[in-house]
């Protein structure tokens, strides 16, 4: 291609680009309304597309759990996590690189935290998930994680003859009444179980050492 032609192509491409820029950035109020409407329509279309893809996937995978978090929450009520709307208030958030939060952040935090707690609830109520060998699950002695009293740990656990944390007691229960294998402290299941047990005791005063 000759240099003149190349220049012409470049200028034309530049013009197209500039034109595109003007088309997308519309500064007039009417133009703004137009842009918003177009975005909404695009969003709706996108959502419809995603919904239909999801429905197709569900048809192909009928035995996969629909929404296991919602299902588990329906079976076993859990305490909701703390209300964080206070972080949306206060002027110091403005201009803060990582400290300016939105509603979406709050929703994300709550959902993710609840997910771990609900996973804990799922394991808590399932002897197979605990890998117990006698068909005993935690909820048989601790409905809704009652009588787990995590706020009393660390304490001198008389029957163990040493100071115990909550996870030591969880492991003891898994080994003895549940007759399963003890979990490593950072095992995903141990973390989930702890999360559930602490969550159910929301609002209780800490009182370590209480027998």
């Amino acid at each position: 291609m000759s240099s003149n032609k190349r220049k012409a192509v470049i200028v034309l491409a530049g013009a197209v680009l500039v034109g595109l820029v003007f088309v997308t950035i519309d500064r007039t109020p009417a133009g703004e309304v137009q842009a918003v409407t177009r975005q909404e329509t695009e969003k709706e279309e996108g959502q419809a597309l995603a919904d239909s893809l999801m429905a197709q996937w569900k048809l192909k995978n009928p035995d996969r759990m629909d929404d296991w978090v919602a299902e588990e929450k329906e079976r076993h009520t859990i305490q909701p996590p703390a209300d964080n709307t206070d972080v949306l208030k206060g002027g110091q958030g403005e201009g803060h690189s990582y400290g300016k939060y939105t509603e979406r952040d709050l929703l994300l935090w709550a959902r993710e935290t609840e997910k771990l707690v609900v996973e804990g609830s799922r394991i808590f109520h399932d002897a197979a998930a605990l890998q117990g060998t006698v068909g005993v699950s935690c909820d048989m002695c601790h409905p809704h994680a009652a009588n787990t009293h995590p706020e009393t740990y660390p304490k001198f656990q008389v029957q163990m003859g040493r100071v115990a944390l909550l996870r030591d007691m969880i492991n003891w229960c898994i080994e003895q009444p549940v007759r399963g294998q003890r979990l490593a402290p950072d095992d995903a299941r141990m973390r989930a179980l702890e999360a559930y047990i602490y969550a159910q005791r929301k609002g209780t005063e800490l009182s370590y050492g209480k027998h």
Partner: protein
Amino acid sequence: MKPRHKSVETKYMEEREEFFRSLRKLDRRSFIKLSTAALGAVAVQGLVPPNSFQPVTLATGPTMQGAGNAFRIAYISDSHLYEKDVNDRFVRALMRAVDDVNALDPQPDFVFYGGDLAQLGQPKELELGAGILKNLKAPLKIMVGEHDWFLDMGEKWRALFGEPTYSWDHKGIHFVTLLSVVEKDFWTARGMTPMERMKTVAGLDNSVQSPFSVGEAQREWLRNDLAKYPDDTPVVVFSHSPLYKLYRPWNFWTDDAEEVQALLKRFQNVVVLHGHTHQMLTNRIGNIHFHGFLATAWPWPYAPQGLPELTIEMARPDPFNPQDGCGDGDALVHPDGLVDKVYNFWNRNPVTVARNYTASWGKEGIPPQPNRPSY
């Protein structure tokens, strides 16, 4: 890493295996030596093997002496049996209860089984329970719990034990047994299989299930059954759910409790003996005195709210002893229908809730307080 401390049950299982291993190749002299040694070791450590003779010490007091025509009934409840190869802990517990009752002297007039014989309503579990209960010397009266019912909606139960609702008279007292774990249909709309339905009901804290109720049909039956009795007839009602409203999230609850209580209102003294709650529970509503049964399988914690004022809690069970907080018991039934309810805790002193405790609305005959209250 091997844990430094073993629970009572682990120690028991190890000793038991050791014992049976060594028994296989013994001559007579060694056998006698070994068994005496084993018994001695067991006695020294305070461990009590299952199926052993368990004398029941009953508290005696002025309420029990000179009782006239008072008679004793025994109870065993909430065994939640699995098949033996899945879990023999609950089986051994029920066998211990049966031995307790068989060791009573004199024998009770009858033994009442408070429901939840099986854990998942399986025919094998129910048959296992029926087989163990056959060893009782005294006559058996039995009641349905939700764990017995919701797998096949009572098909196996009826074949083994007959109709779940019935009544009879004994020494001037009118006894009624109700099926009080009726639940509104929650399973059809969800397309649940029978096992899914059973497992839902088996979860005490599973909120998909409906609350327990007696139901219109049975209330009608009860109305007709009671119609022929005058107001001064002492009435004792056996029910699995408590027939009052304690704590809905755990189905310590009977939805139509008020209607049932209304049917019983005209009688001078009514006693309700209920299972399901696996703990010491006492309540009084008007003329009705409520007492809970202990379970043989495991104890429940106390509900965070709704506890009746008259209830003295049992001391918090020790998880390191799998039978703590469990047991069986009996009741001395007086001619006026009120009972002295004895909670025969395993490995603890028995606790008696005498008739004058509920009769005096908790002013007299106060049972001992727990040294380890609920958290």
